[in-house]
């Protein structure tokens, strides 16, 4: 066996890999490039990994084969750095129909119905071309959901940007938000929630985490495993272009300041085609013609075909000249790596082929038989009769490298120094002047939150709620993480992200069902970053186990670093809850004369708090500890006593002061809290809720709490036109103006 590669003895330019991909061969008459160490490195394959390829196939790979291996083995598709730890997450429960491994997770919601959901990142593409990057992120996650037979019913987005005064931030915010809206609005799915945060740590890497959920009958869910030999492999949807060739490799590469050169690899989205693709796919599924189906996402044709074959223990042959293309002279390499959007691969029942074709003709979409399933373990790629790749299929996914990356535990945080007393009204004003805690209507009014006419609670206040069409049931959705906490204490921060999701669902009266995780971290080859990852996973695992919210799907985005500087660890948790009867949802507003009842214990934990960061510009102390038993107990208390709760909010960033203000602001009624203590008002102790209810309800609630040993205290009252904390006060209208204008002021 001839080895073409020795370990390179010269340093490679950091960005070399991408440059090569842009200059891929564009002319049929040119030969495929010769495999050199540079070319291998440019594909993100380490010398060890290349040796492994040689071992598997027993010869030198072709250029197309190198491309296929690089697509299958990069971090994005293979989870090679994270797999070991992802396996430790709890993924099962009686409510779980299908956990991680398919396009999206499937959870039982009773009456033969299931909610199908996932969250996925599109960070790097969004940084390079914010509109298209974000739009195709939304497109990808919607495709994951309807590929399983579910009509999407809700979308959310968790967005993290750099400092508002960083020169790139404003254009990223406006581009990403317009892209999210542009795609989801046209597709026709309500965007009912999400998060937007700013921190200088995201200056060079914004995060765009897109969530989608759909609804299907439990007996009509479609999976990706192919079955049967000689079955037609069908290509559906938009034509293939050179979009994103090398994109999956890019998504796993660190950035540097030559990023502008990488623009050509960004794919362009077409929500109109995706809408038709969804309608056609769902219609086709109803005919019974679909055996298996897989979305073409990152590294399109390669990943989707391998996955279908691998799960069905079959080989796949593709004849690339049959692939519908929209550019001339596309090579096998380019077709196998193209990330053109709005495409699917299906295995169909041959006898229903005509029926299937009629559905796609109706929607004016491309439909082409591009190959077949074969009995041998082979991934055979043929173009005009010439074999371009001939690889053992199982080995492509099954033998992908897996690393046990070295990691070091994040050192315990230094204790928090003294925090001076602050006029609480000034503190609140400073918080709500920050785009992090200001009202986000500038963002969510650009999203259609009401299409499908089932939205019971649109963005702006905690969880979004969507009715299950034609039933009394409703589903609640939230996405949460506090990256500051995770950075200070990955384990508690991981727990907290889940706990906050649990509380947000509980606060609208929903029973938390399950979660999806979108784990965004820096370079896993650095032991301290890997330590953050490991700590967060352990925390998330502990919390989802204790709160019975198994992880049913997810996505890992690593290498979020620019010039060696990483993002805050950001494990976004998307959580879904069920409301058995929409009439019982807690969606009310505080009213004049309502009592303000605080559920949970207040110790005044100010470490890593919003107040500390925004007002004192200090990022210090430990994250608040999360007592999962209290979380569960207090959550159950709220849910079982929801009859006594008119309005409810969970307490998180900004503590009691911010929660009380937000409830008052939403209801346009004043609030007065008895205390003016900084730690009582702004401390971020966990497992707490603020409830607004009338006097009689309050009596019943306090009595029930007393019986169960749940801490509950009356901390003030809603009413009047002022916000007052102890003796300090101001007009609600003044605060409201600040709250509603600060976001737009900061980003426009």
């Amino acid at each position, binding site marked *: 066996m001839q080895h073409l590669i020795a370990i390179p003895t010269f340093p490679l330019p950091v960005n070399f890999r991408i440059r090569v991909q842009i200059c891929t061969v564009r002319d049929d008459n040119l030969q495929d490039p010769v495999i050199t160490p540079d070319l291998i490195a440019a594909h993100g394959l380490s010398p060890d990994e290349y040796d492994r390829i040689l071992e598997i196939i027993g010869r030198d790979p072709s250029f197309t084969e190198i491309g296929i291996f690089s697509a299958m083995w990069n971090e994005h598709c293979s989870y090679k750095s994270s797999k070991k730890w992802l396996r430790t997450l709890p993924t099962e429960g009686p409510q779980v129909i299908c956990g991680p491994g398919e396009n999206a997770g499937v959870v039982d919601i009773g009456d033969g119905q299931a909610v199908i959901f996932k969250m996925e990142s599109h960070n790097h593409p969004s940084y390079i071309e914010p509109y298209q990057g974000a739009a195709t992120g939304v497109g990808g996650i919607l495709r994951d959901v309807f590929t399983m037979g579910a009509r999407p019913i809700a979308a959310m987005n968790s967005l993290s940007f750099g400092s508002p005064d960083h020169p790139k931030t404003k254009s990223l915010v406006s581009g990403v938000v317009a892209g999210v809206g542009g795609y989801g609005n046209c597709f026709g799915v309500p965007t009912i929630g999400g998060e937007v945060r700013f921190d200088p740590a995201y200056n060079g890497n914004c995060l765009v985490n897109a969530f989608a959920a759909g609804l299907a009958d439990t007996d009509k869910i479609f999976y990706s495993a192919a079955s049967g030999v000689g079955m037609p492999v069908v290509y559906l949807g938009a034509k293939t272009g050179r979009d994103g060739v090398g994109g999956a490799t890019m998504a796993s590469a660190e950035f540097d300041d030559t990023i502008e050169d990488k623009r050509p690899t960004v794919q362009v989205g077409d929500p109109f085609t995706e809408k038709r693709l969804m309608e056609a796919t769902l219609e086709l599924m109803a005919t019974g013609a679909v055996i298996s189906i897989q979305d073409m996402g990152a590294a399109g044709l390669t990943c989707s075909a391998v996955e279908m074959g691998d799960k069905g223990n079959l080989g796949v042959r593709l004849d690339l000249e049959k692939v519908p293309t929209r550019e001339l002279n596309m090579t096998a390499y380019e077709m196998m790596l193209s990330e053109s959007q709005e495409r699917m691969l299906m295995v169909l029942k041959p006898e229903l082929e005509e029926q299937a074709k009629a559905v796609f003709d109706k929607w004016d979409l491309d439909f082409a038989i591009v190959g077949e399933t074969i009995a041998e373990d082979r991934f055979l790629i043929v173009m005009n009769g010439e074999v371009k790749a001939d690889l053992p299929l199982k080995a492509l996914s099954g033998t992908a490298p897996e690393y046990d990356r070295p990691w070091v535990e994040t050192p315990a945080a230094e204790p928090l120094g003294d925090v001076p007393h602050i006029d609480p009204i000034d503190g609140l004003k400073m918080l709500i002047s920050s785009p992090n805690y200001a009202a986000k209507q500038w963002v969510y009014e650009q999203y259609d939150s*009401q299409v499908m*006419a089932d939205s*019971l609670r649109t963005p702006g206040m905690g969880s979004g709620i969507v009715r299950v069409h034609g039933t009394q049931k409703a589903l609640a959705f939230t996405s949460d993480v506090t990256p500051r906490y995770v950075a200070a204490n990955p384990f508690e921060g991981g727990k907290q992200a889940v706990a906050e999701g649990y509380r947000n669902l509980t606060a609208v009266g929903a029973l938390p069902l399950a979660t999806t995780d979108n784990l965004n971290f820096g370079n896993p080859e650095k032991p301290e970053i890997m330590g953050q990852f490991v700590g967060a996973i352990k925390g998330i695992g502990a919390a989802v186990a204790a709160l019975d919210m198994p992880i049913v799907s997810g996505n890992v985005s690593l290498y979020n670093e620019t010039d060696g500087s990483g993002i805050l660890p950001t494990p976004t948790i998307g959580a879904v809850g069920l409301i058995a009867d*929409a009439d019982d949802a807690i969606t009310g507003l505080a009213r004049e004369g309502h009592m303000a009842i605080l559920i949970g214990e207040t110790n005044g934990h100010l470490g890593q708090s919003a107040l500390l960061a925004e007002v004192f510009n200090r990022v210090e102390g430990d994250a608040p500890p999360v007592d999962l038993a209290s979380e569960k107990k207090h959550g159950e208390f709220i849910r079982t006593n929801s009859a006594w709760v008119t309005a409810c909010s969970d307490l998180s960033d900004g503590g009691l002061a911010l929660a009380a203000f937000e409830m008052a602001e939403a209801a346009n009624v004043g609030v007065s809290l008895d205390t003016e203590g900084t730690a009582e008002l702004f401390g971020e102790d966990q497992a707490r809720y603020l409830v607004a209810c009338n006097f009689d309800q309050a009596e019943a609630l306090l009595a029930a709490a007393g019986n169960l040993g749940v801490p509950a205290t009356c901390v003030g009252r809603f009413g009047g036109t002022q916000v007052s904390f102890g003796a300090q006060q101001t007009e609600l209208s003044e605060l409201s103006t600040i709250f509603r204008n600060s976001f737009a002021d900061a980003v426009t």
Partner: protein
Amino acid sequence: MRAAVVVFPGSNCDRDMVVALRQSGADVAKVWHKDADLPQGLDLVAVPGGFSFGDYLRCGAIAAQSPICRAVVDHANRGGYVLGVCNGFQVLSETGLVPGALMRNSGLKFLCKTVGLTVETQDSAFTAAYSQGSEIQVPIAHHDGNYYATEDELKALDSEDRVAFRYSDNPNGSMSSIAGVLSANRRVLGMMPHPERAMDAQMGSADGQALFRALVGQTTQA
């Protein structure tokens, strides 16, 4: 009352429109954009919101040239009722069934929120159940809802009492704050706000119910 809801490949409020009409007592069928004919004996055609053909070229422009739209124009010319909501309004304006055009919002952004509308006239099957001058709450969700008409058209709309709704607080730069207009025979209504999203207090407003109830009632008697 027999109603049909037109479905273009990019329609996404068709189901909502069907639900609202059925809830109000209509017998509703969907019709596909490639169909050249509407069902027999139809009282109302509703053109729903969405992005008909991706809203490429201009919103509603390609849809207005589809086979079904020719049938819709014929139906209107025979004196049939037509309701166009959001993208449906854009389609109707492109067919010329209602005057004017819908341009990009003055803020240049897509805008989704519940807005106040003033009912300007009771004199139509669509608005008969509202009291003139009352304010109703109805959601908007559009990128191109900025109503434009020539001065002469605006004068005609005013003098013939054909402005159905105006925004209480103009969100998109529309001329004279116009949110919905009637055809000369008062049987075609184009409006940007979504009454079909205001059918239930749980959704934030039930103010759209009166439009559908009046319409279904009126045409059933007729």
